[in-house]
């Protein structure tokens, strides 16, 4: 006797007449997935529908598609892609390569956590320049009770940047010109002032946060979408390095600052450490 169920506002199924474990129809937020969306919706429209629960306007679909193109491949120098390539060169499972990229790309420095934090800043500050100016000069608070390490810089800005990079400017210019991107347009207009307050140039995570806000996403939805949208590049770079092999992949030089040297034998490590 089944007494428990999975509650969902997203997905409705009807079983095949002869198999309770196979769906004959699947409706997503009310739309027939295989009888309607498959023929009439684009993938990016369906993605929007999944997250927002409604069909996007043409402008919203274009905005999400533009963001998806901008984020699809951070390139092999990105830490998340680097992590996936570490899986690839060792012949690790495909899933582990993606898991590696998700774990690294989840962080508060260039990752999805940074996007979430930047979106929370948008919720708090809106388009009030004064709130942004004052917020950006405050150092992120250390919370020793949080599993996430304290971010070392204002969310959405590049801690190692010299000036706003060309791809960031190109992405912002393209997306801000769409008719449903007021946050991006505001960000473009106020970029110089915000960068001055932060003492850092705007980063792609900052542009993504504004775009995801314009798409109506919550910070949690934005975090998830950012994780998802970067996976295509992660996957292909992992596959590529699997082909090249570990001998063609950097292993780096180590400089051990406390090398005990060969044949070291200390009975009690505490004495040697403290």
């Amino acid at each position, binding site marked *: 006797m089944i007494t428990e169920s999975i509650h969902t506002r997203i997905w409705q*199924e009807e079983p095949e007449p002869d198999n309770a474990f196979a769906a004959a129809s699947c409706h997503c937020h009310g739309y027939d997935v295989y009888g309607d969306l498959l023929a009439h919706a684009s993938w990016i429209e369906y993605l929007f529908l999944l997250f927002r629960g409604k069909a996007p306007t043409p402008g919203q679909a274009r905005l999400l598609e533009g963001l998806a193109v901008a984020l699809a491949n951070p390139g092999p120098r990105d830490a998340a892609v680097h992590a996936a390539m570490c899986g690839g060169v060792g012949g690790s499972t495909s899933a582990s390569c993606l898991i590696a990229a998700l774990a690294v790309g989840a962080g508060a420095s260039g990752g999805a956590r940074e996007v979430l934090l930047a979106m929370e800043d948008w919720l708090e500050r809106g388009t009030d320049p004064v709130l942004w100016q004052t917020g950006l000069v405050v150092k992120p608070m250390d919370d020793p009770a949080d599993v996430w390490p304290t971010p070392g810089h204002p969310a959405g800005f590049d801690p190692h940047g010299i000036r706003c990079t060309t791809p960031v400017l190109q992405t912002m210019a393209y997306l801000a010109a769409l008719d449903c991107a007021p946050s991006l347009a505001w960000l473009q207009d106020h970029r110089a002032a915000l960068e001055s307050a932060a003492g850092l140039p705007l980063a792609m995570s900052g542009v993504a946060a504004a775009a995801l806000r314009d798409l109506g996403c919550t910070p949690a939805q934005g975090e998830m979408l950012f994780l998802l949208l970067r996976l295509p590049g992660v996957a292909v770079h992992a596959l590529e390095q699997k082909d090249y092999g570990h001998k063609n992949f950097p292993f780096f030089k180590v400089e051990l600052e406390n090398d005990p040297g060969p044949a070291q034998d200390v009975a009690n*490590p505490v004495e040697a450490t403290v």
Partner: protein
Amino acid sequence: MLEEQVGRLVTRMGAVFPGERAVFRGHDLHASLKDLDWLELYLFGITGRRFTPQQIKVLQAIWSYTSYPDARIWNNRVTALAGTARSTGSLGIAAALAVSDAQIYGGGVVLRASEFLIRARAQVDAGADLTKLVYAELKQQRGIAGYGRPISSGDERIAPMLALAREHGLDDGGHLKLAFEVEKILLAGRWRLYMNYAALTAALSADFGLSPREYYFFVIPAFLAGMPPCYLEAAKKPAGLLFPLPCRMLSYEGVARRHWRGAPLKPDAFG
């Protein structure tokens, strides 16, 4: 700053010299550290410190006593589902360990519990009133990590863990005493919250000198021993037999059926 770091790893944590030796936090792993058991090495890796044999016994039990091979538990279920879906054991366990970084159990709770107990102890030692601290924490956080439990109010792990700590003479630390005082306050008030395993183990670990972050890293494998059995049993059974979900178990609470723009209307789609 970035340019200086290109192509090199500057570290005090260790390195391998292939074919020769390996160094772990400044010590030869195969010489001076060769007699450490795995937990001692793990803790040495986290803290750079050593612990007494009695402390190691209790710390090891902190893991063992919460290793439940119950595939219903959310993190274990991930491992078991990996088994029934014929994924690899490593993927199932890695994902389950990551899932254990949760807010209602696991990583999120232990870190908050440890941070609160260490902070409260320091404030009480400085003359603060514990009841006021507890009330303030409840008001700010809407609960105190380590007190209360998602599924039941009691915690079967408390008595055996306390017995073991007592057996090794480790049940009289300041943080542990404070943890019980917090429970008294919470039971006397309207909250009726019992101490759970997270507060007990956070208190013991704090008494052993582990900071909240060190305790968090120590706890990461705490559920690990219960996971392989969940995977193995699910993998032994025919694929898909673990927790099969018929369509009727989805309780749809969303909007009514509708048509995508431009889609031809189908009479049966209004259902």
